[in-house]
């Protein structure tokens, strides 16, 4: 089942006249992990932001449950944001350094729900436990947390509204490889448990390969190749994809290096 259907999406930055997203079409199906891969500056984050209306677009439509998000009134969009969430790349920049962890998560609950203070506290504990942390984190400040723990808070925050779709915008690229594996495990577990759909953005094809069902390869605002993970990794058709694959340090389990 199609969860989101994006049609001819186009985004040009008015000042620089750079067209970051140049008329793309794609669908995201319920329950899948769709990978979006490409180099810095190819427009993958702009595309993600456009879908959630975090930036204005010039043309196109994004259908969610038969309604175009891009034409939706603000009030209704706000309601829908509960279902469509995002996890940002940099867990250092995306948490307010002056707010305690409890308040960071509570803020979301205050905006998107009208549950009582006690219910909020219980919900915060539940969310923290869901991401492998616990009640002891409520009073802590972001700077007291490691990068991996901070990203877990980012994930807890995006889960607070009970979403069905999450954009993961390079959620692990600023973390150590060992911590990356922990966070990927967490994302896979949460997906299963909460029946989530992900758009997973990364420049690391190894990460994309290990987690995605389908993959979109993006270059200069356009899609150069779309296919199942097997197609992209075992039988890529486009030269740019092959180039990316060649640059990726892929470690085969049985031998040191491919």
């Amino acid at each position, binding site marked *: 089942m199609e969860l989101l259907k994006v049609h001819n999406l186009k985004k040009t930055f008015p000042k620089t006249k750079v067209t970051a997203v140049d008329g793309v079409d794609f669908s995201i199906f319920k329950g899948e992990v769709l990978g979006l891969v490409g*180099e*810095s500056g190819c427009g993958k984050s702009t595309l993600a932001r456009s879908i959630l209306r975090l930036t204005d677009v010039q043309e196109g439509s994004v259908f969610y449950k038969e309604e175009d998000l891009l034409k939706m009134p603000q009030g209704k969009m706000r309601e829908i944001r509960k279902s469509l969430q995002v996890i940002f790349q940099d867990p250092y920049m995306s948490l307010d350094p002056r707010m305690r962890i409890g308040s960071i998560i509570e803020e979301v609950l205050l905006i998107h729900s009208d549950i009582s203070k006690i219910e909020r506290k219980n919900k915060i504990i539940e969310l923290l436990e869901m991401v492998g942390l616990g009640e002891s984190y409520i009073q802590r400040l972001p700077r007291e947390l*490691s*990068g*991996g*723990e901070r990203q877990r808070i980012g994930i807890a925050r995006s889960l607070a509204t009970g979403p069905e779709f999450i954009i993961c915008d390079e959620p692990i690229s600023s973390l*150590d*490889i*060992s*911590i*990356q*594996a*922990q966070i*990927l*495990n967490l994302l*896979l*577990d949460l997906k299963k448990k909460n029946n989530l759909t992900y758009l997973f953005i990364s*420049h*690391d*094809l*190894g*990460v994309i*390969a*290990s*987690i995605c069902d389908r993959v979109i390869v993006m270059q200069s605002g356009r899609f150069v190749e779309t296919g199942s*993970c097997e197609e992209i*990794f075992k039988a890529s058709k486009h030269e740019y994809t092959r*180039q*990316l694959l*060649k*640059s*990726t*340090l*892929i*470690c*085969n*389990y*049985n031998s*040191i*290096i491919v």
Partner: protein
Amino acid sequence: MTMLLEIRDLKVNYNVDGHPIEVVRGLDLGIKKGECIGLVGESGCGKTTVGLSITRLIPEQKGGIASGRILLEDRDILSLDSEGLRKIRGKRISYVFQEPFSSLNPVFTIYEQLKEALPKEVDARQSIPEALNNVGLGNIVGKEKLYPHELSGGMQQRVMIAMAIISRPDLLILDEPTTALDVTVQSQILELIMGLKNRMDLAILFISHDLRIIFKFADRVNVMYAGRIVEVGPKEKIFSHRAHPYTRGLVDSIPSFEHRKKRFNAIEGRTPSFSDLPKGCKFHPRCKFRVDSCTGREPDLQELSSGHFSRCIRAKELMSNGAIKST
């Protein structure tokens, strides 16, 4: 082959709230001429501190080297005065840091910064174009008014490498040189570095958290945990045996197509704080192969085969049976 650099029982303290905390806890490491040595471990294991110790770049207010020896061909770097250090830094040993944009000075031109790295008696008009050509920046030769912000991240890192090799050092320390860069740029920079290594017969200490890079480029691999080496050996042996559970965890964390859609056999938890290290083996609280005696005394490095050492009491079991039961 003779050792170019040898670190013996290095101990480094950092001052935390007025108390010295040991962050490098007796570390041995050797680098032969022309060899690429990988130093791998998670953030906060002390690997950057080792790099900084070699060039004596640890800020005094932060802490200092408590004991040990760092021999550069029989001369102890730790006994040098500032004049002696000046003769080694940049000339015998160079350093490339993780983030090129914060390593370059934004208010000076690229040419001015390259020139600064040269000894006075060397002709800059000849050396700078040569160095730029060497790092694949032939297109900016002659552009003397160029500032760092006019270059991309990859080009900036090439400039940093040009600066590092311009005085033809024997040893290059690379501290996560490509972590801040895109995959394609990353592979270009890594290829450049390996080309230079072969052409200039450079020895390299490659510091990274990413075993993929280390396995691709290093001859020998040192795995570091909580301020000490826990496994060291030729990369083939490290990869095929993984004679320390920590190495195992790092290898199991590598994402790949072959391993897709499965949960990673990841290392749980986080690196311990140096002010509160566990008793015995420092890895035991996160270890899947832990037994009771792991909490006793911290194991020594034991030699398993020629040049291959592990600091785990179950190393032989791990090696003889790849899939011994985890506890």
